[in-house]
């Protein structure tokens, strides 16, 4: 796998990731569609996600929670806005309350994912767009939590190059 580029655009409030995988678009699509595969990568190793619902059709919704090291379970949801298997996926991703349902007052962020066949396999472009700075901040608070956990999880994997 190669991460080709990540781009942050503060004017348009987007974060874009472009990655290439040595697998066909169908197989890359499958890690989004199959909830058991999805939950193996959506959350960091120390904050694994559990999808209790994953209705992967246009207009369908998902519910998930993450389990943190102290037993905390932040909850989130998806709504699928567009699907063109295995080329394109648009979805909304928001914060949920303790009941698992969308939290009022916090707009979801938008995810736009495309999958292109290449000589080597698949190029996946994932764009996350925030609506405004306030929402970005709210989502970053959650992202922060995930990011911090990753940082801890990465210590083992990356200690060698990071510490010299």
């Amino acid at each position, binding site marked *: *796998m190669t*991460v080709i*580029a*990540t*781009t*942050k*655009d*503060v*004017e*348009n409030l987007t*974060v874009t*990731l472009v*990655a290439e*995988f*040595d*697998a066909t678009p169908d*197989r*890359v699509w499958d*890690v989004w569609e199959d909830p058991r*595969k999805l939950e*193996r*990568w*959506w959350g*960091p190793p120390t904050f694994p996600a559990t999808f209790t619902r994953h209705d992967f059709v246009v207009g369908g919704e998902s519910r998930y929670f993450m389990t943190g090291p102290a037993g905390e379970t932040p909850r989130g949801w998806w709504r699928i806005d567009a699907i063109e298997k295995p080329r394109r996926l648009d979805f909304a991703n928001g914060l949920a309350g303790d009941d698992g349902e969308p939290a009022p007052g916090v707009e979801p962020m938008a995810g736009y994912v495309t999958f292109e066949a290449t000589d080597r396999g698949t190029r*996946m472009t*994932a764009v*996350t767009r925030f609506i405004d*700075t*306030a929402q*970005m*901040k709210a*989502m*970053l*608070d959650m*992202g*922060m939590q*995930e*990011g*911090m956990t*990753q*940082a801890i999880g*990465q210590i083992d994997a*990356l200690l060698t*190059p*990071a*510490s*010299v």
Partner: protein
Amino acid sequence: MPNFGSITWLCHVQFGRVTCAQWPTPLIYNHMVVDISLSEDEIDRIFGALADSTRRDILGHAIRHEQSVSALACQYAMSFAAVQKHVAVLERATLVTKERRGREQIVHANRATLGKAGTLLDAYEQLWIQRAKRIADILANPKGE
């Protein structure tokens, strides 16, 4: 260059777009560690301060050169008092510091906070880089051990 991340991000603020982060880089990794020391209140203040385009612009000026409040005020179609208020918001967010020099108040950018704010955005970016890495692992090992 411990401030590299913050400088990159400030280019976004001033000009609107684009940076690339290579992974893995020890530099970003080290920033992740620093970043944990921000409290929720600090995060609120920093993003609240950066939500306003005039304040981002003032911050951009202060990063390029230290500026007196009156020199800053000359550059905006608003009163000295209004500019002073914007500077105060930036100051509360610890994005700038003010220093009295004779009759002037000089505004300096606070690089330590800028580094932390840049890292907040980086954290989200890193989240996706790590997700891509895990997807690659799943594709290499579809059954999951």
